Every structure is written in structure tokens, then in C-alpha cells.
């Protein structure tokens, strides 16, 4: 073979490379000349048999062929890709909807209960439980409810055949916990409660409460205020303030009702807070010494606070729900809106 033949081969290769219009064709050219079983390796193999005077030129031309062809192929490939990106139709569609199973949604009631559990967990509160079917003793007597108090009426309370009742509040859990252990006590007790209310936009015969109780030495109303404020800010937002109004409950003394400052308007007044800047939440107070006496605690050595809150009410405020029945309607669209 002559060196000139290699030059001719190079010309042919470059022409073919220029003519190749697709990535596949370019690859064909590469394989034909530069591939493992291609023409160029063939030439290189034959080099040792060639005329000694021809060998240097042949080597040089072969090298040129290799480098120039590779460069051209790369250039052509890049150009083709660029052109393809501009014009070529492709079945790949990045805009198709994603395909993976979606999460479900937690019900707002159980979500708020869980939030409360987590928030009070950081203060060392453990979760306590009690039965929905209660005795009159735990639901009323032990909580210092007078024997002829109207809340005991069959008008307000669901009594069962056995003389037991469906608890009207989660407060009986307080009694059960205090009976079962010496102080100190730090619990929260979420659960279902029942009252003979006819269902409407703000009433439900069955609803959820969260009860809190802290008993120890020198527990004060200032502790109650501090802890509820901490809860309010973590649940509704960092700027939320808490205020107390005096009230009356048989099992606490002093008793208060507590309000959160409106998380929507920051206290300036809006539709949610009915222009008052405050939202009524629920009741709280210092445990009545009579209750301590009932569970065998010494009211001289321990004091404590208790608070309650209606979960549905908080859910309605937090999510802007106008009708309590929506919470028990279980419309998938409604529940998914509130997924978090």
C-alpha cells in the first residue's frame, strides 16, 4: 500500500462523514473507518509489511485520518443534535402528569388532637385516656357537681339503662388519673364527649375535647397562663396572646374562660373574631380543693390547674369552617383541602 492510498481513504472518509445526515449514519462511518474491525486499524496492522520508505508518510497520514475524521464526526454529531433539538419530534413528553401514589389526608379533628399532644409533650405532659361510657361518680360527683345540677338532667346527658352515662366532658379522666397515682401529675386527655344537643351548624351530640391537668407543689394561675399561651402560640401562630375572663365551673376555683387573640387579624378585628380581636376558646381554672379531697390528695400540699378545649371549635377557627357538620360529613374533597 502507498501513502497516497491512505490520503485517498481520508478524503473518502471525510466526504462520507459530511454526507451522513443522522446520528446512526455518523456512527456507521465511525465504525467503518475507526471501529475495532474498521479500515484504519486494518491499515495500521498492514504498516509493518509496507515499504520502509513509505512507512513514515503512511503513519502520518493514518494519524491525520484518525484525528481529522474523529474531529469531523464530533462536530457533525454536535450539529445534528443541535438541529434535532430544534426541530425533531420526539415521543418523550415531560409535561405528562407525575405517577406516584398520593398521600391521603388526616382528619382535622385528629390532626388538632395530635398537634396538642405534641405541643404539650414538649412540656412533659403524657397522654391519658378514659372510657366514653362513664359512671355518674367520675363525670359529676367527683368533679364537685351539685347533686341537683341541671347538667345531670336527662335533658342534657345521655343516660344508659345501667345507670351509667356517656361522658359529657373529658374531665373524668382527671379524676381517674389522680386516683391511680400520687402527685405530681401532668397529663392531657383527648377524647369524645356527648351531650343531648340537637345537631346544627354549631352543635353536635358527639364532639371532642382535650383536657389538661397539672398538679404539683405551688402550681399557680401564672403557670396556667404561661402554658396555655405557649400552646396557643404553637398551635395558632407566634403572635397569639391569651386572656382570661372570670367564670364559674364547679371543679375549679378560681375559674376562668380563656380567649385567644385573633390569629387572622392579629387582634385588630375582622370577620373571624366578629370585630372583637379575640376568639373565645374554652374554660380553665385552679383545681377546686374539694376535688383534691375526693381523690385523696392533700389540698394544703398540692395545687393544680386544669383546662379544657373543644377540638371542633378549634378546628373551625383554625381552618375557617363555618358548619360543624362538615367535620362529620367526610366529603373527600373537604378532607383533602385540609390535608397538611
Amino acid at each position, binding site marked *: 500500500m502507498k501513502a497516497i492510498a491512505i490520503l485517498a481513504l481520508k478524503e473518502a472518509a471525510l466526504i462520507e462523514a459530511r454526507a451522513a445526515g443522522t446520528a446512526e449514519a455518523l456512527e456507521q462511518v465511525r465504525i467503518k473507518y475507526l471501529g475495532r474491525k474498521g479500515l484504519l486499524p486494518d491499515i495500521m496492522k498492514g504498516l509493518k509489511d509496507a515499504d520502509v520508505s513509505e512507512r513514515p508518510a503512511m503513519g502520518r497520514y493514518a494519524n491525520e485520518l484518525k484525528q481529522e475524521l474523529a474531529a469531523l464526526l464530533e462536530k457533525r454529531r454536535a450539529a445534528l443534535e443541535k438541529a434535532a433539538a430544534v426541530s425533531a419530534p420526539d415521543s418523550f413528553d415531560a409535561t405528562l*402528569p407525575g405517577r406516584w*401514589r*398520593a*398521600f*391521603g*389526608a*388526616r*382528619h382535622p379533628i*385528629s390532626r388538632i388532637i395530635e398537634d396538642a399532644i405534641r405541643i404539650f409533650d*414538649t*412540656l*412533659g405532659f403524657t*397522654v*391519658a*385516656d*378514659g*372510657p*366514653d*361510657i362513664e359512671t355518674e361518680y367520675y363525670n359529676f360527683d367527683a368533679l364537685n357537681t351539685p*347533686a*341537683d345540677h341541671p347538667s345531670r338532667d336527662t335533658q342534657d346527658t*345521655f*343516660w*344508659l*339503662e345501667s345507670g*351509667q352515662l*356517656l361522658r359529657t366532658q373529658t374531665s373524668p379522666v382527671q379524676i*381517674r388519673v389522680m386516683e*391511680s*397515682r400520687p402527685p405530681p*401529675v401532668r397529663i392531657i386527655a*383527648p377524647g369524645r364527649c*356527648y351531650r*343531648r344537643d*340537637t*345537631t346544627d351548624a354549631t352543635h*353536635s*351530640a*358527639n364532639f371532642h375535647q382535650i383536657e389538661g391537668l397539672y398538679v404539683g407543689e405551688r402550681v*399557680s394561675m*401564672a*403557670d396556667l*397562663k*404561661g*402554658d396555655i*399561651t405557649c400552646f396557643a402560640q404553637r398551635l395558632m401562630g407566634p403572635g397569639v396572646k391569651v*386572656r*382570661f*375572663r*372570670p367564670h*364559674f365551673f364547679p371543679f375549679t*376555683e*378560681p375559674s376562668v374562660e380563656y380567649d385567644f387573640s385573633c390569629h387572622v387579624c392579629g387582634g385588630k378585628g375582622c370577620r373571624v373574631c366578629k370585630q372583637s380581636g379575640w376568639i373565645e376558646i374554652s374554660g380553665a381554672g*385552679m383545681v377546686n380543693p374539694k376535688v383534691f379531697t375526693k381523690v385523696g390528695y392533700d389540698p394544703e400540699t398540692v395545687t393544680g390547674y386544669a383546662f379544657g378545649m373543644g377540638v371542633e371549635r378549634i378546628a373551625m377557627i383554625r381552618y375557617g369552617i363555618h358548619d360543624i357538620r362538615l*367535620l*362529620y360529613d*367526610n*366529603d*373527600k374533597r373537604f378532607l*383533602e383541602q385540609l390535608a397538611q
Partner: protein
Amino acid sequence: MKVPLSWLKEFVAIEVTPEALVERLTFAGLEVEGLTRIGSDFKDIVVGEVISVNPHPNADRLTLCDVATGRETVRVVCGAPNVRAGNKVPFAAIGAVLPNGMKIKSAKIRGEASFGMLCAEDELGLSEDHAGLMQLPCDIPAGTPLIEVVGGPDVVLTIEVTPNRPDCLSILGIAREVAALYGCRLNLPSIKFPETGPAADGPARSATHSVAGGLTVVVEDTEGCPRYTARLLRNVTIGPSPLAMRLRLARCGIRPINNIVDITNYVMLECGQPLHAFDLALLAEGRIVVRRATLGEKMTTLDEVERKLTPDMLVIADAQSPVAIAGVMGGAQSGILATTRDVVLESACFKPALIRKTSKTLGLSSESSYRFERGVDIGGVDWASRRATALMVAHAGAAAARGVVDCFPVEPKGRSIVCRFDRVRDLLGVDIQDNEIASLFEALTLTIVDRSKKSCTVKVPTFRPDLEAEVDLIEEVARLYGLDKIPSALPHSQFVSGSADQAPPERSAQARALRPGEPGVNDAFIRATIMCRDTLVGLGLTEIINYSLVSEKLLTLCDAARTAQRIVLPRPISVDQAILRDALLPQMIETLGRNRSRQIAEAAFFEIGRVFFRNDQQAYTEEEHVALGLMGPVGRTGYDKRSALAETDSFLWLKGILEALCRKLFIRVDERPAYEGQGAGLAFQELTVAAPPALYDLGCFEKNRAMVITLDGMPCGVFGLVREALRREWRLVEPVAILEIRLAPLLERVTTVPAAERLPVYPSVTRDIALRINNRLRHVDIVNAIWKIAPKELTTVELFDIFSSNEIGVGCKSMAYSLTYRSGERTLTDDEVNRLHLGLKDRLRNEISVEIR
């Protein structure tokens, strides 16, 4: 409790805006629910005298009145039925604006010109009364500005009084609070009046039997009536009460009747003591007996309803029959009439519980019963009687007979309470000085009878029966000092004994701690429940919460067999909420159906909640359950949702969720599933096995499309496809898969700490096997057969294809499995694996009747 500010200010001279007062009262425990502005300055409204009344030519109901306005006489068209010549009535001249915003203009009414308007009370914003024109006293000259007659604008507060503060159900009570809050003096109205006639006491006076001026009072039930007083007022003139009194009553929501009745009501509003007036002439033998009603006794009350009385009701009777239901309502027969001459004025104290019960039994409540059932001030009974007597002497021309009947056998001892200053500071968490505490008590007219360095002793007046113990006094300090001044203590964390963190780690003890509804601290169970919820949400299910109370219809629709177990409410509020649910599935199906009816084609729901039932000993039992429900192509993603949904799809998706949940909760889910319910961890049983307690009746499932779930061999739940007839109730056309399982056994292993195992070192080799088998053979039969004959190198058996075709043949299917072999000691060669696989195939043919393809 409605409180007109003009009235309150007669008791306490305060100079504050109504808004400031509302704020102060609310934060002292007297929550003001409403603030109503009433009346106006009545510009251009004067007293008019009706000179003449003539019929309107074009309208029967209208009249043409000539009205003297002081300056002129004008023609007014009037529609009131009670307009008469000579009446003095409010006249609104042209240009006047009524409190309701109506502007008076000259007008033609049915063709007749009218130059002004004669007003009713409601049009002036003075009361709700629209029966006719407001009648003004005849001695006021025409032209007098109305404001001089009825007073200027007023504000009425509506105050919510908590049940422990009956003393605040009166102007006086509220005034006492205001005086304490603002540190001002309390002015009491006059109770002075002249007495006439002979000396009061008759011959036979005792604590329960007393005679005065021809009236005899006997209290038979001194427990029900600890104090009864009566005064006799002779020669009264029945007529309207003074205008100012009538207006005040109206502002407090009480309709004026006549001077005697109005005065009893007025004094009740003033001091909280309900009073009752009897006509002496209508009391047989001039006798009052306070006693229990006898069985079968009846009485018609003032509202003209005949009431059946029972011996647990207290009545006021004359010598023959009841004339009033004590503390609740008077009788129609003994009330004050226009002809009444002599009045018996009752001021008494009745036992609250008795009045409450009577009022409830009769379904009859009144301003009077409302106060008695909360408790009236036994020390203020005579004051009220004197006050009313003074007013009757002044406004009804009454002559008060000398003396009073006062049956008051046991005068209660005044209560004294010791209050420690340190205790106040400790309980409230606020640094308040001793002197400040003492002065707050004094502001409340609680007399300090003794004081030491560390405490003071306070005497409690009879109008504050709610003050029983030291802590009640501390509450008084708190609300007067101001709850807003109590600081927020910095929250601190404190771990108390018995929390989950200290629970014993042994599994058995843990399992015992995990009981739903178990009284007391139950941290671990509830936290595990939360984790369970989150897992299900992560698996794509949405949580629902249904009522605990359900209708019998729904339960029976799903479950006709188990009615005996149910706990039925004796007095439900509606048939929809009549039974405590004994399973979650009925509402699960209903919820899916409700969503389907709202064009929601697919849903995956779960609920975790309590069910209630009677156990074998008939004791009420409650238990936490989990329910799952799937409808529509929920197991598919993207755009393959249109293809028809097969029963197998729904069923297996649900099963997959259960398996995933179990794995998450450390329950063993074997790849070699046990279908006889004997395996460790999750296994299944045929539905024919008797259902475990509290589990849903299996009648709501399609035949051969359901299984009982066992955990460690214990039946715990059930799952399958809803029977077609039941689906039809909610027009659920496609398969619906549901599951219900007890929560406690599911959570039993949740606290497991897994141990790390060494990962395999040598590579595995996979070989496939395709079988043609009869449809009767199930997956589990094949897998079990393979495992039975498997060499020790076989590590997994995985189903990867299943199909039927003409080629396979009728009643048969093809199932293909991928078998993985691995050795723990060395790398298996191809030849070794081929030998193992071939051997397995051969033995499998003998094990079960399959054709290996």
C-alpha cells in the same frame, strides 16, 4: 339579666362610658352579652292632647284626629285602635326623627292630609309594645317635650350571670359589684312607710305560725320554706303604675300589669327577691298555709293552664286549696283584680332544689322560679317586703297594716372564713400586698373581723352564699385585682413518674399497657395510634371520623344478626343517633356511598374509633377499631384508571394495605402466607369460622369474597368485598372492599426494636417456572407445595405472571413464578442452579397436579 344604666346609677353614682363599664364588668366575671341603646332625645316630639276623633272618610281603620300640641292644633291621621278624645299621647311633629330612623313628613293618607304622627311605645323605642298609642299621664300639659316625661336616652346591658352568683340577678347585686370595682358608695332606696291599725301580733305567734291583722300564716314545711313573711296592705287603689316604673319594667323585659303587680316585679328586679301579691278577699279564712301539695291536687296557674300537682311540690294554700305554686307562679283564682281592696304581700325564701324540680316537672319557669332555684338572700327577705310596701303606700294609696308576719324558725349563722395572704399569692402566682387583699374584701362589703400578720378573717354576708372557703375568697381577689395582671409564667418541662418513657421494656408488660380507653395515663397506646394514622395516610388513605351514635336502620341493614349486643340509648335525640355503634363498617360503607353520590369516583378511607357492645357478661365494653374502605380505581396511578375494575383489584389492594400496615407495626407478614390462621403474625381464615367478639357480622360481605384476619393465631378482624345487595343501597356499582380490625392487637409490637442482620455475601441466581393449573388450586397451595419440597438454597418465590387464554383452556390458568436460589457459603454455578431447579420441578409434579410449561 337586663340592667338599664339609668337605674343602676341610682344605686351607684358612676361616671363612666357604657363601653368602659362593659369591659370592667366582663373582666370581673359579669359577662356583658349585649348593650342596647334605647330612646333618644326626642327632638320635636311633645305631649299632644287629642281634642277630637272623627272617622276617616276613605278607611275604616283610620281616624282623623285634631291634636293640641301646645302651640297649635293640627290634623293627624291615626291608625291606632285606642285613640280617644282627651288622651295625652306622644306627638311627633313634622321634621321629627323617630329612634328607628323614620322621619316625619306631611303626608296624604288615603286622601286626607296628616301633619305629624301619634306614637306607640315601640315606635319611640321605649318597649316592644305596639298594641296602641302610648298613653301619657293626663296631668301633663300639652306641648311638654317628651324627654321631660319619659327621660332621655338610656343604655340597657344584658349580663350573663353565672349560677354561683344569684345575688347578681338584681340591680342591687350588680350595683354592689360596681361599687366594689369603682370604689364608690352604694345608695339604697327608701323603705320607710307609715303603719296603721292595731298591733301586729295576734295571740298565737310561733316560728311557724303567725297572725297579723286578720291574716294567719302557717308554714308546715320549714325545710322547703325556711322563711316566710307577709304584710297586709289595706284599701289599695288598683290602677296603672307610674310611667317611669312601667318604662323600666319594659326595659327589663317585663310587661306592666297594674300598680300592685308592677311593684312586686319592680322590687324583684331591684333586689332579686321575688314577691307575690294575693287578694285577701280571695284567701279562704284569710289563711296562708305553706305545705306540700297532696296527691291528685290540681290548680290553674296565672297562665290559665291547669297543673297537676304532686307531693314533692311546695304550694301556698289558703284554708281550702292551693293558691300558688311556691316560688314558681301564682294561681289564676287569687291574683290581684281591678276590684282588689286588701293585698297580702308575700316575701319568702324557698329551697332552691325544690323549686328547680317543680319548675322542671311542670315545664313552667318564671322570673321568680329562675331566682329561687339559684337561691335568694334569706337576710334580705324583709327588706324587699318593706321596699314593696313603701312603694304600694306611695303609688297605690295603700295603708300598711301594722307589723309583719315573719316565719323564720332558724336564722342561719353567719359564716367566717380565714384567708392566708401567702396562699393568695401562691395560688395566683402574683405578688399582691396584704393590705391590697384586705381592701379588696372590704370593697366587697366583706367585713374583716380579725387580722393577723399572715391572714385575715372575713365575715360573709347572707347575700354571698357562694363564698364557702378560702379559695372562694382568693377568686374574689383574682377577679377584682384583675386577671390581666396575673403574669404568664415561663413554661417549663417536667417529666412526672409513670410516663411512657419509663414504661418497662418487656413486651408483655408493654402489651398490657396498650389498652384503649383504659383509665389513666396511656401514652404509648395513643402515640402508637397516631403513628398508625400517619402510616395509613402515607399509604394514600384519607381519614374520616363518624359519629359514635348511629341509626338502628343502618346497623341492621349491614348486620341483622347481632342486635342483642348493641347498647341502645333509652332516650335518643333522634332515630339517626339512637345506638352506640358496635362496628365502624356500616358508616364506612355509608360514607363511601355518600361520596359516590357526589360524583367522587374513587376513595380510600380509614377510620380509627371506638365501638361499643355488651360482652358475654352483658357488661358495657368499648374497644378501639380500625376500618378501611376502598372504592374505584384507587390502586392505579396515572391514566390507566379507565379500564374496568375487577373484584380482585379492590380486594388485593386492600390486602396490600393491610400487609403494609402490619409490616410497619412489626407484625410478621410471611411470604408463605398462612391461610388456616395458625401462622405467626398476619394470617387468614375462612369466613366460616365463628366471628370473634365485637367484630362485625360477616353478613355484609359477598359470599367467598371475604376472610377473617388473624394475628398470631387470634381472630382480630375481617375484610372482603361488600355484598352486592348492600352496595345497591348506595348505588355503588363497582366492587367496594372494606376491612375492620381491632386496634390493640395491631399495636402490640409497635415498640419492637429491630435487630440488624448480616446481608448476603454471595450472588443469587433466578430461575422461572410457569405452571398450567386448575382454577381450583390457589396461589397459596402452589407456594406451600414449592416450599414443602424446596432445597435449602431456595430463598424466595415470587409470582410474576398470571393469565388465562384459549390455549391454556377452560377452567385453567397459567401462573408463573420466579424462584431465587442462593447459598450462604459460596457462589452457586449455573450448573448447580439448573440441577436444583430441575429437581424442584420434578418433585413439584408429584406434589400437586400441575403441568409445568
